[in-house]
């Protein structure tokens, strides 16, 4: 994972609450055996019309949403399945951060492990961002702040280890492998018990 310290972009907004992983990427596309190339399938059944053309009613298809890397979504984004295809699809689609007042647990874990900034913000600020699509934000992972267009800062908290990994591009499997001796010790004690 490449280090991520800062992200500057305009926001795109999906106001719906409880956007589940089936809406992010429908299950019928999960037969892939690779991580790549899922962006074209992101929000598939919402984003395209039945003839395959873009659905003009899907907010992210609208001209002002093009190039937006920060998604502000309704409460409880990413609920449902454990499919990591959801953050893979979002990242490949061009989304680098999701801001929400509540994010489903497994999705949030999966997202952060892939460098997708899944950030929980307070309800009042969430409400404001939902009501004001297209604003330019700067997310500072080091300072844990989001700078609004008027220059004011909104604070957020990332789980400290996830933040450390994002900032330094830490390989979590590599970190776990450093515990190999302790794991072996644990297994030995367990066997003796």
């Amino acid at each position, binding site marked *: 994972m490449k280090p991520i310290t800062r992200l500057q972009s305009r926001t795109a907004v999906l106001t719906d*609450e409880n956007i589940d992983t089936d809406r992010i990427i429908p299950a019928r596309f999960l037969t892939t*055996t690779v991580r790549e190339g899922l962006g074209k399938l992101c929000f598939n059944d919402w984003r395209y019309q039945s003839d395959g053309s873009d659905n003009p009613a899907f907010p992210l298809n609208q001209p002002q949403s093009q190039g937006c890397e920060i998604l502000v979504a309704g409460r409880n984004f990413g609920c449902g399945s454990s499919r990591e295809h959801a953050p893979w699809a979002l990242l490949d689609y061009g989304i680098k951060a999701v801001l929400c007042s509540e994010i489903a647990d497994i999705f949030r874990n999966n997202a952060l492990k892939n460098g997708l900034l899944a950030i929980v913000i307070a309800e009042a600020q969430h409400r404001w961002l939902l009501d004001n699509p297209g604003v330019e934000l700067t997310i500072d992972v080091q300072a844990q702040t989001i700078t609004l267009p008027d220059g004011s800062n909104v604070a957020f908290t990332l789980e400290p280890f996830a933040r450390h990994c994002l900032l330094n591009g830490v390989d979590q499997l590599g970190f776990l*492998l450093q515990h190999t001796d302790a794991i072996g010790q644990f297994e030995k004690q367990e066997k003796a018990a």
Partner: protein
Amino acid sequence: MTARTLFEKVWDAHVVAPESTDTPAVLYVDLHLVHEVTSPQAFSELRQRGLTLRRPDRTLATLDHSTPTLPTGADGVRPYTNAAAKAQVEQLEANCAEFGVTLHGWDSDQRGIVHVIGPELGATQPGMTIVCGDSHTSTHGAFGALAFGIGTTEVGHVLATQCLLQRKPKTLAIHVDGKLAPGVGAKDLILHIIGSIGVDGGTGYVLEYRGPTIEALSMEERMTVCNMSIEAGARAGLIAPDETTFAWLKGRPMAPQGADWDAAVARWRALRSDEGASYDREVHFDASKIGPTVTYGTHPGMASALSATLPEPTNAQERRARDYMHYEPGQSMEGMAVDVVFIGSCTNSRLPDLREAASVLRGRHVAEGVRMLVVPGSEAVRRDAEREGLHQVFLDAGAEWRVPGCSMCIAMNGDLAQPGQLVVSTSNRNFEGRQGKGARTVLASPATAAASAVAGVVADPRVYLTEAAA
């Protein structure tokens, strides 16, 4: 010593390295279940890094999600829905062979849905930590195991190290008192609970289901309850093991045998929350007040009594759900026209679930124009059901009797509903498009699903159960 909850006991026993402000705990995993959908990229990662599988003996794989539920044709060709599904299954077969994982594949008489076969084999045991790249891993909590779903990156972590980096979650006790009425079961109970605490009511928590009503449930019913913990946002849901648990597990192929069994049971008896243990949150339910319960909207929290008047939408999501599901505020779900009925999934595909559906269908026929699929959870369930003649009840009623798999719960194997069709389903998710693009899902118990198949509309099973008994 401080009083601890069941969850805390299981958690504490698996900490390899404790958590600190800076780092999560390193948590040991006793059992890693693997299926074809969420594992290929993890095996690739190991291969790229030149890593081996740490504990093949604690890793168990099966084929369930992408697999056809129609039998192999006369030409010997398995009817996969597409080349990708076939390639994915073959990839798992190759990965298991290369890394030394036991696979319950096509030639195994124990193949089935991962959350059905783990318990069936006795691989699932009290006090274990169990993970799988599948959110319904919470099912195994029915045995007093800490069991939760993980992503594919974490699948790789467990393959390589048998451990996960985890922050300790909060605890939520769900106390259930009162006797469930006849014709009302575990599925109605859990739909009622999710409808009450909400689709995100358990986010950040591990649930513990407790109280006399829970203690009176069979293991299959407990699995139905724990299975849907994730539908309230909770990664895991546990029930303390008891005599019901021990009796169910005894003699299963992977359960301890002889003196080891006695020692294990003695250990397992300590796996209950201590008197005075405190939870971060507690809620109470009276089971006697619950009737047949179904979902009416597009997430499992939009659930209500079958006969209850549906609310007028008050926000954008409820309006969207009403428009998608075509339900009428002011009316109930009872009587809504049905196109498809699905009995199956890791929630409700075990032998007692099939018996419950068969008890409604016996001597009756699926209504004109309704398609009904019955998909047993495993080869073992299929064998047992056929031995009892349940398959004949389904076939005589005009239903399809299929080969085990996830089937129409996730609709990635070709078993799916058409746009606009209404499916009464014993599965766990009613999200938009879950059972096929544009398909509308009503989650229900096996009895309610079977009654709806007979009536051709969403129906109260108690009428049929009373008649069957008479």
